[in-house]
């Protein structure tokens, strides 16, 4: 039981229950506005009947069409602790994939902390696989060291041969990814 709708600026005042989670980054206003200005359809929020925000997904479309790298990207996905275990993240991912399909993307990708096993497993269940490891993608904070990321991908229907998800065996550095 969820209302799924476009994320608006006013939601920034209400998302504390989601963003006070230690793994959810609160970005500067420009970051959110950039997504709202450029890819508003990729920014979806779920709202409970009581008006509480349950979770949101923020993403974009990018990459070269000619090189078959045009794809949907998940920038942020977070669900408030009390609304977990409802399959909400899966639903939001499904929506982002559908929009990416419509835009003719070849795949959807995302980055996730290698330590975030809960998330990695969830993405695997949703059909994502590790495409490559990005070394020290997450910079140090709160006394924790730099952390590696998995670049996970799922092929969309345009990529009939699933070429886009063939894993790269060697880890790459953040400056080498596009």
């Amino acid at each position, binding site marked *: *039981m969820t*209302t799924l*709708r476009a994320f608006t*600026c006013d939601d920034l005042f209400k998302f*504390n229950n989601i963003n006070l989670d230690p793994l959810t980054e609160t970005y500067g206003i420009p970051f959110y506005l950039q997504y709202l200005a450029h890819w*508003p*359809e990729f920014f979806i929020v779920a709202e409970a009947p*009581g008006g509480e925000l349950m979770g949101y997904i923020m993403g974009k479309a990018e990459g070269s069409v000619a090189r078959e790298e045009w794809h949907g990207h998940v920038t942020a996905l977070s669900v408030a602790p009390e609304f977990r275990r409802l399959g909400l993240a899966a639903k939001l991912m499904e929506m982002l994939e559908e929009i990416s399909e419509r835009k003719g993307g070849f795949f959807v990708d995302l980055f996730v902390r290698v330590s975030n096993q809960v998330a990695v497993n969830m993405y695997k269940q949703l059909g994502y696989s590790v495409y490559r490891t990005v070394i020290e993608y997450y910079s140090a904070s709160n006394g924790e060291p730099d952390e590696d990321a998995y670049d996970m991908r799922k092929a969309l229907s345009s990529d009939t041969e699933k070429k886009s998800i063939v894993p790269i065996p060697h880890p790459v550095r953040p400056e080498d990814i596009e």
Partner: protein
Amino acid sequence: MAARGHVQDPNDRRLRPIYDYLDNGNNKMAIQQADKLLKKHKDLHCAKVLKAIGLQRTGKQDEAFSLAQEVATLEPTDDNSLQALTILYREMHHPELVTKLYEAAVKKVPLSEEYHSHLFMAYARVGEYKKMQQAGMALYKIVPKNPYYFWSVMSLVMQAISAQDEKLAQTMFLPLAERMVEKMVKEEKIEAEAEVQLYFMILERLGKCVEALDVVRGPLGEKLTSELRSRENKCMMMYQRLQLWPECNALSYKLLLKNPDDWQFYLSYFDSLFHLMDKSWSQPEEGEHCVEGPVQTTVAEAVKFVVDRMEEQDKKESRPLRGPYLACLELIHRLRQRGCPDEKELGDPLELMVQFFGKFGDKPCCITDLKIYLHLLPPEQRSQFKNRLGELVPLGEAGEDGFGFPGDTKALQRHLCVCQLSRALGLQHALDTEGKLRLITELKAHYHHGLQFGKSCLKTELQFSDMYCLMAAHVYIDLWTETGDENMLWQCLGMLEEGLSFSPSNAQFKLLLLLLFCRLGAFQPVVDLYSSLDAKHVQHDTIGYLLTRYAGSLGQFAAASQSCNFSLRFFHSNQKDTSEYIIQAYKYGAFEKIPEFIAFRTRLNQSLHFAQVRTERMLLDLYTEADVTLSLEESVKAMGVCPEEDDIPWDNMRDNRDLTVLVSWDPKDRELTEEHRRLSLEEESVWLKVRALTLRLLASLALLGHAPSPWNSDKTNENGISAKSSTLQTLLSQLDQTLETAAQITEKHTQYPFLGPPSSRLASALSSGSCHCQASALQLSLTLRELETTGLEMLSRCKGEVLEMKDGRLKTQPSLLETLVFFVETVCVVLWVASYSANVLRPLKSSLQKKKKKKKDSSTAMPVVMCGFQEWTGSLHGVVTQALDHVKGQEASLTALKLAALTLEEGYSQTQEECGFTRAAMDKVQTSYLGSLQEMGDLLRKRADSLKSLKI
């Protein structure tokens, strides 16, 4: 020459190192490099601008600005200079200068698409909608690309939105925008989805909902593909605005069949159903069916629809959806509101909720879901409900302590949910002290038992049993607030600290600890707790109040200042940041987002918290710095506080605080209400007003205090002073009024829920007497100022010759004598008051001096009031001395007046004899005047002597 296009512009190559230095933050080197380059190439303007950027970034604003203006007046048309100037002006917060720059550039290069488009964006940055409209069209004429045309259309819409006069919007801007789009539609030139979106936006704002619907449903609507369900959402919006309830109903029905979990459509389904029933709408027998499909018009149909949806879920093997079950409760709620007996068809709410718990009791959101519908249970069923739920919780055998524990996390979640529900039903609050203590023991036992399930949890994860710990803390707080037993509070703190040790990233533990420490008056632990929440950016506005409400008031001035700074930095960047993305929204055709971004910017600018931290930060600076490192006047000037200016949007204040950030499962009658929110905002606003007025009064005082003395200044200065003291007067009477309002507010003794907004500092400021003491002190400054000026004014009215010879005639001004008498009398009164003040202050001073001697601290300054008194008696002395001088002067000139020299004109009417008598009379007057002057002079002298005894 053929290869010219490939050769890099040599200037680019020369400038490159400067760009690199700037990019790397090496501003000094950038300036040096620019100077070097300018020696060789005097006309390389861009180097000057880059140097200016370096200067700006090293704090040399004035130099930077004049350098930039040197280049700007040349009206450059090279890309490098233009872009560099744009960057510089933006950093200087002068975006309006960028418009001038490109206005000049397009004049010189009228066919440049690039410069015209920069000009449009420059206007967009400062919100010059009219000029944007023209710039967009000019651009379209040069390069007929659709986006340019629609930029112009959108600028019309923005003129409509920003128009003060709604009529102008409806009759001029929007219709014009509509016609512009229609023209493109007719010519079949519509290309992009954004253009259709904009068309829809215009029609919607014009209230042309039918036309808007036609667009969405028609061929143009086919372009609306990016957003999921874009067409359906827009149709639904229009159906609701047009009150087309059949369509609304049918569409909701259709969408619910597709996704029976989408809550918004249950709401529109029920809304439309009841509207149709109220209108006794019936299917037309013939003719066209509703375009959206079948319409449902009876409760029976709705009941069946909801029951069918539930059955659908019942059959599913995994992951049933919650929507249909909650829709059932929602329908009962609505039927009950309407007094409709059919709710029985859906079943007993108690059974339905038990059923819901059976299905979803192991989900953490079960409490949030059911909480909304607990009012469907009559009070006498509450305990029964709790017991029924208890039966559905598998717990192990009870141990010695009488508690049975869950065997896995699902059972734990169920048990927890029952606890949460019983709290929400008020059953926990109904317990007596012993009952509550036993409840705490039970919750603690479950908390500790549950920790075993989370042994492998990462530091970033929550423990499964965390919420038991939080609830135990809530019960402790209940006990503390009810009984005043502080021991409960200490145990509560211990409980939460323990919880945090097992679950170091639990934000709720941190928030509650933070609140409790603040209530205890201990701010130091709060700093670390808050920083571990990692609250950033917009969160400064929404939860920053937790910090700023207490830091200053608990005497942690450094922390208070720092937390104000965090918030201020966020707010100050808002203006610049949002402008950039308004421009981006034009570029990407996200037209709907443009008014949204502007409203967002306004919401931040009008934030209560913003105004609070702005004011508090300056007061803090004054309290800690003024007359310590800088004088009050210098501090005020450095802050740029202008007493006449009020920059707080009192009438449009936005309360952006997140007042429900702390989780609560309290029953409805203890929850935060809209009325609480309203009262809290009111209270905070009045307190803010007191603070803002205090700040402005202090600024006013500072500027007044250091004005040149009025008796040796020219006329203009006197005016300046009176203007300043009239500001002081106005502000003081505003403060008085505000304090009256404040007193009324505090009389209400509003109590907020414990987990809701903290009370403002208003009540304690009033009861401590600080408000009134400060107001009186400030009033005193005004009185003194008045005393001084009116005293001098009186004296100046005494001036003039009481007796003089003019044009061979004798002129008297006896009123001057009378005025002088009033002056002397007044001096007496003032001196008596001064002597009273001295008597009050003298013991105060000597006790201070004793202390000083004890401490041997020679640096302790005398309190302001002492200095103020000394200043006052000083100026009194000045006035009296002036008056004495005046009297002396009068005496002298009177004595010097030789009446004998006066040739009384004989022959008119007077004989010589008569003239003799006149002379005698004149002599008498002269002597008498002299006598009066002498007497008043004597008195004044004696009074001046008594001034000496006023030393304290």
